[in-house]
């Protein structure tokens, strides 16, 4: 994503729609935190991680899953 002015985000950053292995058809959205943008691809396996933004706020996020 490249639009400037989205609060809390410095472009470019990656947003992915993720389908859970545990429940096909269940989609969720997150950022892929550890992958260079040019290496992202559709179908790439990822795993969940939890990003603590503050004492009150923790977001489920995603990192590359190495097989």
């Amino acid at each position: 994503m490249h639009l400037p002015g989205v609060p809390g985000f410095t472009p470019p950053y990656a947003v992915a729609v993720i389908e859970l292995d545990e429940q096909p058809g269940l989609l969720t959205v997150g950022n892929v935190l550890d992958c260079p943008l040019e290496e992202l691809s559709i179908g790439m396996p990822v795993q969940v991680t939890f990003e603590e933004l503050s004492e009150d706020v923790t977001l489920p996020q995603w990192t590359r899953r190495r097989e």
Partner: protein
Amino acid sequence: MSGGVEPYSMRDRSAIVGVGHTGCVKDAGVAPEVMWMRAVREALDDAGLSPRDIDGISTPYTDTWPMGAVPTPFTLTESLGLPGLRWHSGPLGGAYSLGSVASAALAVSTGQCDTALAVHCMVRPKRKGPTAYNYKGAQRASGVYAHLAPYGYSVFVQMMATVARRLLDTNGLAREHLARLVVDQRSNALLNPLAVMKDPLTVERYLSARWLAEPLGLYDADMPVDAAIAVVITRSDRAGDCRHTPVLVRHVSTFLGPRPDWVFQADYAELFPVELGRDFWRRAGIEPGDLSFAQIQDGFSVYVPMWLEALGIVKRGEAGGFIGDGNLARGGTLPTNTHGGNLSEGRLQGGGAVVETVRQLRGEAGERQVDRPSVGLITVGGSPTVCAALLHV
């Protein structure tokens, strides 16, 4: 054209007899009320009718869309000095300008009123900076946006970028195909005095433009403008009394998708529902091969290949090649967005497409005139509320 008329068909019972269009500019310097009244006056004059002939009004005004420039039927009734209306409505199919025209055509076809006015007005956001489009709430997220905004994902172009990524990587689409589309539409706009964009565009400039949200760049998104359009629809048995050749409303179809967002979809390549396409041609008694031209809403460039596939004009995965081969250009097999589309004429959410379709079918399109057209397709909608119409002479 083929197929018997179905017992409940609206087929050809209404006709567009007047159109008005202010032209698209970045700053009209006047209030929206002035713009839409200019368009209304032009449409009535074009039809050879007076305000008192209007007994129905539809506009795309709804409480759920922040489109403050759009008048309500109340506003228009008062502004035109009418004693009241027999019929009024919001948009059909959530599809803005075309939805209003479709509502009006249905009302006229079913005897709710005799002559209806459909109006749309758009205002370019004057606030500086990207937050002008964050009206779905990067700052205050609710509903589905509560699951998106925390990830920096709340602006329409970002969501359509996700869809575009999938089309490019898995559905036979290439940026070079989109380049051809966008550049051809710009060249159409240069022949349209109502268009906001006045400079030619090259494939090189398209491909090297800055990203809005990769893989969508600056020229993949439509151009916000100040503009208004108005359309007069009357009973086809009275249309011959009007000033110009009536343009008959053959059929309109709408579709409401299973979900209101662009993100949590089972199949991005079918975000524009194929269910609409399967039904649309049969009910209209017209086939894709009958089309003289098409005006396919291009709020983003990728809508065009999606619509082509959803309506079965090409098979799934083939729209990119079809566009890349120049079929949509002037002189191609299906000239498309002959006015420049929302990308280059301006963001009228299909309003310009309606006016252009009428002018093409009347043979009034000047240098961009399609050779002896008889049937035009209009599609509007960029989310799972969509509308498509077939007009003919």
